[in-house]
């Protein structure tokens, strides 16, 4: 069964700092990869997704992620964070053996100091 690991539980940055959140998955087959964001008190919403093609994926609000198959990784990046990026970030994956089963990582809480 696949799993998703997010090793950073809580990241604290100052505004304008660069961000990279780690995500690793365990499945060796064909996967789709996602990053979701949950702003305080709100529901999850999609930031970006990878399904095929260019491994560098651009999402909303200036976020991007790079799929590195050899490292089983899909790290999220943003060159310059804003206070409004304070949220919980979740990496997720599904695979070709069970496409409807989208598995989430444990989440990374991002706190931005104004």
């Amino acid at each position, binding site marked *: 069964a696949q799993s998703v690991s997010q090793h950073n539980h809580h990241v604290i940055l100052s505004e304008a700092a660069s961000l990279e959140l780690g995500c690793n998955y365990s499945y060796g087959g*064909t*996967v*789709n990869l*996602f990053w*979701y964001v*949950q702003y305080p008190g*709100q*529901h*999850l*919403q*999609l930031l970006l*997704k990878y*399904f*095929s093609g260019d491994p560098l994926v651009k999402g909303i609000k200036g976020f991007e992620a790079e799929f590195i198959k050899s490292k089983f990784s899909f790290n999220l990046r943003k060159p310059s964070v804003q206070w409004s990026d304070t949220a*919980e970030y*979740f990496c*997720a994956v*599904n*695979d*070709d053996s*069970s*496409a*409807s*089963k*989208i*598995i*989430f990582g*444990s*989440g990374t*809480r991002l706190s931005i100091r104004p």
Partner: protein
Amino acid sequence: DTAVSQTPKYLVTQMGNDKSIKCEQNLGHDTMYWYKQDSKKFLKIMFSYNNKELIINETVPNRFSPKSPDKAHLNLHINSLELGDSAVYFCASSQEVRTHSKDTGELFFGEGSRLTVL
């Protein structure tokens, strides 16, 4: 217009009671889900239905019974509530999910239902 709506948003109840959470989506999606988010924000899939048919049941106690009267609704009924059931329950929907499809996998979440069992 809310795409995925859940009711109630907050639910406080005593151990041993039975409660239900309702979910409706107006996106025309075929697949609906229930996820449980615990106090540490860990999000775990519980059930998935495709066109009213159960396709995923993730080792959830049988006190939890999902019901899908039509593809736009997926309700969750919980019997004999326990303290450990306290969590935020999220309903979600998506188009039919296929790998390597650009339409796959985007989940649209409801706002969550916070269940507190005393």
